[in-house]
């Protein structure tokens, strides 16, 4: 059933769900999904006694190659979901599968191997301050032997993000937009199947933010991968194919953003969702 009439460009995503029971419906076949969450919950102690629910019985599936926006107010659980999907922490309950493999069951070397299939982009870039741009880009593969030249691939990625010739620059000598470009290049060094971006433009001015979004869209066309962006910015969400809205850790809406509608209108409608 459409949430909005067709002209707005938003409708319920096929196979999407609001949790309706324990675990909730999980959408499409988890074995074929890039990522499938089933009944995922995570709570944190706050020290004041009352635990905070960061993920509340979350279930959804994402098809390979999807461009998904996780939206919601600050504290709604967007970052927690990204961390859970990226296996940076384990859920209290529920399962996360990637290509049919249960991520939540991975430990040790298998866990590290899974993380290498995931690229992370953070709001504050998280570059290593003592390393040059090129060394930051190749940092994820430093402990490994690769079948390709790390420095050559690092240079090509820096060129792809518009930073050719800045290989030897330190992060402290780069603007926020440039640092985020380095972070994106770093996230792509392993040719990830999944790119997780946590408020990637949150610290950038609107011009740099647009440039970063254009860059991510262009890189996604060249390297097909699933992209999940946590954002509270309607302009970013409106450029995605699907919008998963969170409140207090729970999915409250899962909408497909149909193409072919005026961007401003879509941004306005996404913004009205809150």
């Amino acid at each position, binding site marked *: 059933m459409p949430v909005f009439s067709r002209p707005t460009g938003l409708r319920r995503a096929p196979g999407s769900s609001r949790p309706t029971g324990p675990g909730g419906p999980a959408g499409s076949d988890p074995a074929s999904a890039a990522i499938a969450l089933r009944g995922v919950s995570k709570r944190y102690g706050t020290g004041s006694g009352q635990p905070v629910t960061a993920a509340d019985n979350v279930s959804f599936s994402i098809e390979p190659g999807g461009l998904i926006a996780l939206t919601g107010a600050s504290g709604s659980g967007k970052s927690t979901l990204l961390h859970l999907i990226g296996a*940076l*922490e384990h859920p209290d309950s529920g399962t996360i599968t990637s290509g049919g493999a249960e991520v939540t069951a991975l430990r040790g070397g298998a866990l590290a191997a899974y993380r290498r299939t995931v690229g992370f982009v953070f709001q504050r870039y998280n570059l290593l301050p003592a390393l040059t741009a090129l060394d930051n880009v190749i940092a*994820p593969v430093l*402990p490994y032997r690769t079948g390709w030249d790390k420095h050559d691939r690092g240079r090509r990625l820096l060129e792809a993000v518009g930073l050719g010739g800045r290989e030897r620059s330190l992060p402290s000598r780069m603007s926020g937009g440039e640092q985020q470009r380095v972070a994106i290049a770093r996230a792509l060094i392993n040719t990830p199947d999944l790119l997780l971006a946590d408020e990637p433009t949150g610290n950038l001015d609107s011009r740099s933010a647009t440039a970063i979004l254009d860059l991510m869209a262009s890189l996604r066309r060249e390297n097909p991968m699933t992209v999940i962006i946590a954002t509270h910015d309607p302009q970013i969400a409106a450029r995605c194919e699907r919008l998963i809205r969170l409140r207090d850790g729970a999915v409250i809406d899962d909408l497909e953003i149909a193409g072919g509608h005026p961007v401003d209108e879509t941004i306005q409608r996404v913004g009205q969702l809150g």
Partner: protein
Amino acid sequence: MTVQIRGVDYIAVTATVILGVLAVADALLISITERAPELATIRAFGWPEAALRRLVITEGALIGMAGSVAGAVLGLVGAAVFAGQFAPLLFAAACVAVATGVLVTCVAALLPAHLLRRLPAAQLLAQE
């Protein structure tokens, strides 16, 4: 020149080694705490725990190497100044001291390296 080793020297050496282990472990713990968000980022890249441990132990070994070499050189110079001559045996002792220093700092780095596993990566990345 003869080199005499007294009982009190053994006690002094033992105390120095223990203090050295504690000092290096403390320095590395502080370093890890300060760089915890960076280490969490590196873990998010998919570095295995063994590679992260090697990073900390290598850092400890380099600290140990720098400190041991500096200490050995100062010791040799001091001994030569106070004794008025240089005994070849002291050079051999200095080499042993450097090797022991590196070994001791590597052992001292094991504790902070082990504690790396407890880094709350997700929270650190959220705070970064």
